[in-house]
Every structure is written in C-alpha cells, then in structure tokens.
C-alpha cells in the first residue's frame, strides 16, 4: 500500500509540475528533469542486464541510436508527429536486440561485452556513410516541426520521460518478481546449476535483452526528439554506456533503487563540474571514470545496499522468503548451497 501512495504522489506531482512550469518560464528545469528520467530508464535497463541477467553489455548505446533513428526515419517518411513514432522506436529496437542476440549470445562474459560494442560501432559506421539514412550529419526533424505544438513541447516530453522512467522501474520490479526474474537471478548466480534445474538460460536472457533494447531505444528516441536532431556520433556515442555504467555501479548494481540514487549523483556531479566549477565536459568524464573505479575498488556493491542495511528499508526488494519462514519456522538447514557449484 505504501508503494501505491508513493506512485500516486509521483504521478500527481509530475502532472502538476508539467502544467505549472511553462507559466513561470521554468522550461529549463523541466528539460533537466526529463533528461534525468531518461537516463534513469536507460540505466535501469542496463542494470537489468548487468545486475540481474549477468549480461555485461558495453554496446547498449546501439539501441539508444537505433531507437532515435527509427523515430526520425518513421516521422520523416510518414510525415507524422514524432510522438506517434515513439512506439515504432521501441518495437524496432526490441526486434534489433532479438536479431543481435542470435550473434552475440554465442559470446560469453567479457567477450559478449566487447562484441556488442563492436556491433554498435559497425552500425554507426554503416549509418554515417549511407546517404539514405542522413550520412555523417544525421537527421533533423525540420519537415515535421509544424506538427509539434511548441507551447507544450517541453511539458509533453517531461510527461513522456516520467512515464518511461516509471515504467522502467516498476516494470523491472514486476519482471524480477515473476518467474522470469527468478530464473534470471539463478542464471546470474550460477548458470550451470540453473540450467541443470530446468531454467532455460537462453530464453530468459533473450527476454531481458529484448526488453532492455526496447527500453533504451524508446528512451533514446525521446531524448533525441527533445534535441530535434540525431547523428551517428551522438546516437551511438559510447558515453551513453559510460553514463549507464556509472549510474548503476555507484548507486548499487543488482538493486532496483540503485539507479535512482545513481542518477541523482550523476546529474549532481555534472552540475557541480560544469556550472559551479566551470570545467569542461571531459574533466567531468575524468571524474566519472575515477568515481566508477573507486566504487569498484572500495565499494563494489554501490551506495544503496549499505543504506538499506543500515536503516532496514525494504524498498523495491525482490527477495523471496522461503515458505517455512512465512510460517514462522526456521528454514531447513541446507546441505548443498549454490556456492558449492561455483568452482566449476
């Protein structure tokens, strides 16, 4: 019930903020929060892959770019408002993810990570030298601009971004509470043991890879709609995955709350570096890289798990309690644990 109250509160505040902000010329704040929502959604998708499915995807920016390209292509070809092309972007990115999985799932662990990165570079190079897809300069929304109501543009993008962020967090929660999520976590912890218990490793991973691809594609499409233009070097920029990685591991990989904290820290750092200290974007990236390294060395669980344990907050925990514990009995002592299979 508490979750429901928070959810309703979030929706009411977001709706009101979108309505009120244009009157006080606070579109800048709306755009800033929209960007945070989209980064949160992308990071949550990356967290699903790396933190729950054991799939480290360093080419996740390819779905950001593909979603944006799908939206621009559809909107310009069919001459429709970009809002209507957003579902196309999500579906197209999801289909691309399913196709990519055919190749990429042959590679494991780090090889999968860098293999997806190569695929992203391949697609970006292909797009940048194909004039039919805008070439090196990419697409602009110029022809369909009359279809957009610019009085409400920032507010609409804000509501859509908020909806996507909400769907990403609650969708991830629902997915991880389902049998797919249980299967995924068992695969992440020990794929041999999981498959010997009848968990279909390939199918579970495919589902989450497709969902993450569709989610990042949709978020990327909305992000570049707000920019009104997309190019291969922006859409397929490896700094997208840098942001997703930073947000996830600093906030807490493998927790649903982690990316929320991580997003706040990412944007707070960005504001401090670029507006307060007046440093360039690359100094900010140096700090992002260094902070990610520090997190890996000294706090590999990220910030959320210590906070959760210190204050005993359940939050969006997807932990399941065994039936015995529900009845108030101690669970039977296990003789063989998953750790026993680890050395294989």
């Amino acid at each position: 019930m508490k979750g429901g109250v928070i959810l309703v509160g979030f929706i009411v505040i977001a709706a009101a903020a979108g309505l009120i902000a244009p009157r006080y010329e606070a579109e800048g704040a709306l755009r800033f929060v929209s960007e945070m929502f989209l980064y949160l959604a992308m990071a949550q998708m990356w967290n699903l892959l790396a933190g729950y499915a054991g799939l480290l995807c360093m080419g996740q920016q390819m779905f950001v770019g593909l979603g944006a390209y799908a939206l621009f292509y559809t909107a310009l070809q069919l001459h429709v408002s970009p809002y209507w092309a957003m579902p196309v972007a999500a579906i197209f990115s999801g289909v691309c993810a399913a196709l990519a999985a055919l190749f990429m799932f042959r590679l494991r662990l780090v090889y999968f990570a860098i293999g997806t990165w190569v695929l992203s570079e391949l697609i970006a190079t292909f797009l940048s030298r194909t004039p039919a897809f805008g070439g090196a300069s990419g697409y602009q929304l110029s022809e369909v601009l009359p279809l957009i109501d610019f009085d409400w543009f920032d507010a609409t993008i804000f509501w859509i971004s908020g909806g996507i962020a909400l769907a990403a967090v609650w969708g991830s929660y629902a997915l991880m509470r389902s049998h797919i999520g249980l299967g995924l976590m068992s695969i992440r912890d020990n794929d041999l043991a999981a498959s010997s218990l009848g968990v279909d490793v390939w199918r579970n991973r495919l589902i989450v890879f497709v969902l993450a691809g569709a989610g990042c594609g949709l978020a990327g499409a909305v992000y570049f709609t707000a920019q009104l233009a997309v190019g291969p070097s922006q859409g397929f920029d490896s700094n997208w995955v840098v942001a997703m990685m930073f947000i996830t591991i600093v906030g807490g990989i493998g927790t649903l709350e982690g990316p929320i904290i991580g997003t706040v820290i990412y944007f707070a750092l960005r504001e401090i570096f670029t507006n307060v200290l007046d440093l360039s974007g690359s100094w900010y990236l140096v700090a992002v890289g260094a902070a990610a390294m520090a997190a890996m060395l000294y706090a590999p669980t990220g910030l959320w798990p210590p906070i959760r344990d210190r204050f005993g907050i359940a939050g969006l925990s997807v932990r399941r309690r065994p039936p015995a514990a529900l009845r108030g009995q101690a669970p039977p002592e296990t003789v063989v644990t998953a750790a026993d299979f680890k050395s294989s």
Partner: protein
Amino acid sequence: MVWLDLLINGICLGGLYGMLGVGLALVTGVMRLVNISHGEFIVMAAMLGVGASDLLPGLNPLWLLLPVAAVFFFVGYGVQSVLFNKVVTAPDFLAPVLLTFGFSIVLRNLMFESFGADVRSLTAGGLARMSIEVGSLSIGVLPLVTLGLAILFFVVLQLVISRTSFGRAIRATADNREVARLMGIKPARIYNIVMGMSLALAAVAGMLLAMRATFTPFSGISNLLVAFEVVVIGGFGSFWGAMFAGFLLGVAQLVGLKFDPNAGLMYVHAVFFAVVLFRPQGLMGVKLP
C-alpha cells in the same frame, strides 16, 4: 597486380593488428582479465612517440621504439601492481572489466584535455617514401620493416613463454595460481611483469601504427576493438592464431577501403561477425572460456 599489392600491404598492416591483439591475449590468457584500457595505452605510446620525436628532430622514430616500449613496460608494471591486482582475483567478472573500463575513460579524457583533439601522426622521414621494386610491384620499405618487427616480436615472445624458466612460471600461474604459489612463484609479481610486457608490445604497435596512419586521443576505442577481434578470431590463447587473425583483418580492411574509401573499420568488423557466426571458437585454438 593490384590484388597482390593489396594482399602484401594488408599483411603488413595485419602484422601490427596481430601485435595489438597479442598484448591483449597475453594478459587475458594469464590473468583472465580483459584490459579495456589497452587501446588508450596504445594511443598514449603514440603520443609519447610524437612528443619525443619533436624533441629530437632528425632522429628516425624507429630508434624510439625500444625506449618507449621500456617506459610502457614500467607503466604496465606499476598500473598492475597499484590498481589491477586488487580486482584480478575477484569472484565475478564484472569488477575487473568495469575497473579497466573506468580507467580507459579517465585516460581518454585526460589525453583530450592535455593534447586536444588534433589529428597527429609520426613521420618516419625518408624511410616512409622508400620502396622496393619487384617486377611491376612497388612495396614500401616502412610496411616491410613493420612486418619484420612484428614477426620478430612474435618469435621472441613465443620463445620467452615456451623455452625459459620465466615463461614456465607464467604458464604455471596461468594454469593454477594457487599451486604456482605453493611452488614459490609470486603470482602478483608475474602479473605485473605480464602487464608490463603487454603494454610494451602495445607501445611498439602503437608507434608503428602512428607511422602508417593518423590518430587522435579517441582512437583508443577502435584500437581496443581491433585487438579484441584479433583475440577472438585467433582463438583464445593462441599466438600464431592471433598473428593470422591480424593478417586476415589487415587484408579485409585494405580490400574494403579499395572498394569503399569511407568505410573505415566497417569491413574489419564485418569479418569479425562472420567468424563469430560461423566459428565462434575462433579460427585456431581452443574454445572460449
């Protein structure tokens, strides 16, 4: 004749790609760590080479190969002992990858801040213009020297690993870290030296690449991806496989550029995907771990 010319030039370029890959494969094979910042070290070596040859005008940059390689041996030794050894025994694979990924971001952006985004290259003086005439073929001397150096480094590395007692210690550590430790080998020290060797190779390859083509602080990503493709195509832990994979990718790149001058590394990546699709275990060597 055009084809033979492309083949020879492709093999000369491929020797360099093989070297990029062998440095990465050595580290991966010995300590199960894929160094994502490998590409950035390649670019840093080229930057150091450019800086040193600016200070010493008139000196052929080929003489700078060994000093720069020596510098990067110590850089590798230091980075491994200070940073990478902390995560090398981590139970999951995420920690080492994300640490080296973070490191690559730091290095790339520091290079951009220090040197700007200018396109640079190393000029090899008169050597770059010299060529040998064989029949109607004209083969550049510099690519041949490059290929010769690449093969030399391959042979030396192969001999060190397979014939010396130090090489035996490396192989023992790669096979079983704990048993090697029981036999009096210090795994951390072996790791430091192996990372030093890897970065020394990367430095030589980086300088030779900078004599062939231009680079920017952001070239590290494409260097890393090529090196990685060499490792996967060559088959995990196979030196000769890596060399052959380098040749294949070098030829693929030059043939691709012949038809399609703006393609960049597109055909190299395409060959990589063809191999992954049809022979995921690589062309030679054993199955991926």
